[in-house]
């Protein structure tokens, strides 16, 4: 199959508000695809629809040849994901988090164990694997999430702002491995980021989304040429304008606030 992700005329409305407005794009197998856009442009909403956790209002999606709204299990088996927000269980150890993931994905015991050790070692957490995740720093959690997303050997890797809060060393390390994966094992990568130099460096193709619409699509070089910009960042600004976007505080933000008040420092 040549197209790993195919999106055609996808729409998501929340009441009156149109979060994703008739977008179409394809990602060929083995390519690294950057999905760029300002805050609130519709990136995460799109990823949610691609990954079966949100139903589109209209439009057609195929992920690895399957429809996320009807063939959820096939789609879910095809991809691994690093979410924008942390999604580890803080009260479990790193190893337990990995193990739980492997079991949910139906991996046999011996294979699971081998791959967990291999991946935990790869992200440099081997000596901390018995520690509780709540004792981890933000960067360590991120590395663990990347390792977890790769555990079941997915065909597609979704990364929603995967390198936020990581130092350049870790960032380079993770991207190096992802590029290698994409080349050697033909894994397709779909990522979002606010770091334009990162997108420029690793992405084969990018799409720029703004106000729910795709405003430009192509190789980073093409976009720079089209907008006569020296960097992808300048091209991005040329395409999406200078206005700073306001995002409403999500209920998650409010909850975090409340969680801190509620539980005090001791529990989490």
């Amino acid at each position: 199959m040549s197209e790993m992700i195919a999106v055609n005329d996808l729409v998501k409305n929340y009441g009156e508000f149109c979060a994703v407005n008739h977008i179409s794009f394809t990602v060929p197998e083995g390519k690294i695809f950057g999905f760029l856009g300002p805050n609130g442009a519709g990136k995460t909403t799109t990823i949610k629809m691609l990954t079966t956790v949100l139903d589109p209002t209209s439009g057609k999606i195929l992920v690895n040849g399957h429809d996320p709204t009807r063939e959820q299990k096939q789609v879910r088996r095809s991809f691994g994901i690093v979410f924008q927000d942390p999604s580890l269980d803080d009260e479990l150890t790193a190893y337990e988090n990995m193990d739980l993931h492997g079991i949910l994905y139906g991996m046999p015991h011996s294979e699971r164990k081998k791959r967990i050790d291999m991946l935990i070692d790869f992200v440099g957490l081997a000596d901390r694997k018995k520690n509780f995740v709540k004792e981890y720093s933000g960067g360590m959690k991120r590395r663990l999430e990347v390792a977890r997303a790769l555990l079941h050997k997915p065909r597609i890797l979704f990364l929603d702002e995967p390198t936020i809060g990581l130092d350049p060393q870790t960032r380079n390390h993770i991207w190096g491995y992802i590029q290698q994966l994409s080349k050697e094992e033909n894994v397709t990568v779909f990522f979002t980021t606010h770091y334009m130099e990162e997108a420029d460096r690793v992405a084969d193709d990018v799409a720029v989304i703004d106000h729910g619409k795709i405003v430009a699509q192509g190789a980073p070089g093409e976009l720079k040429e089209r907008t006569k910009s020296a960097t992808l960042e300048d091209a991005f600004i040329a395409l999406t304008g200078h206005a700073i976007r306001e995002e409403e505080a999500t209920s998650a933000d409010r909850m975090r606030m409340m969680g801190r008040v509620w539980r005090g420092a001791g529990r989490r």
Partner: protein
Amino acid sequence: MKAIYILCMRQLKRYIRSPARIVGSLGQPILFLVALGFGFRAMFARAGGGNYLNFLAPGIISMAILFNAVFSGIEIIWDRQFGFLKETLVAPVSRLEIVFGRTLGGAIVAMAQGAVVFVICLIAGFRIENSLLLPVAIVFMFLIALLFTSIGTAIGSVLQDMQGFPLIMNFLVMPLFFFSGALFPATGLPKALQFALRLNPLTYGVDGLRGSLSNTYAFSMATDFIVLSILTAILLAIGSYFFSKIQL
């Protein structure tokens, strides 16, 4: 099946690793047991009700199970906001497996907490009538736990955040507890109150537990068991339905 098992185990691990929660949620039951159990003891005996502690203890055990079960179910909100729920929702397992694993785990945790309160009641002077009926008591404890974890699951699936939590505590959980016959006999009440008690699933749980532990029924073991089982099945289905409708 393995998914159900591992998600259930996760709940148990979290419970065992959080002694603060275990101890913290004992406060209220102990308070009720000591204040009411000893405070009303003489009055209850004078009114011809017998040993109030033996009457009250099953109610207090039910209370501990009720509170912990609803809370275990509602924990979905935490998992949703702090991320872990997403990890399970994108995994290639059915929502039904996830919700069963969670609900079963939550129910076992609530039951364990009920067992701890049981022991405390024994220490306070509670004596069971017939130890042969202990397995029956455990069945009732499990049904209460499963039923109210399912209610918590349904609530947790619908609510987006914890803002509504005080509402649930004050307008659902507390009334369920007070109007269940946990504190006073479910007989000889004003008609309206009698009716409310009849509608409350916990009434049958408390009665079944009290019957098997202290051998005093308002209904009968069979009635309690049948009503509770049917309600548990219905609420488990409702909880699963709402969980399956979660969108991120």
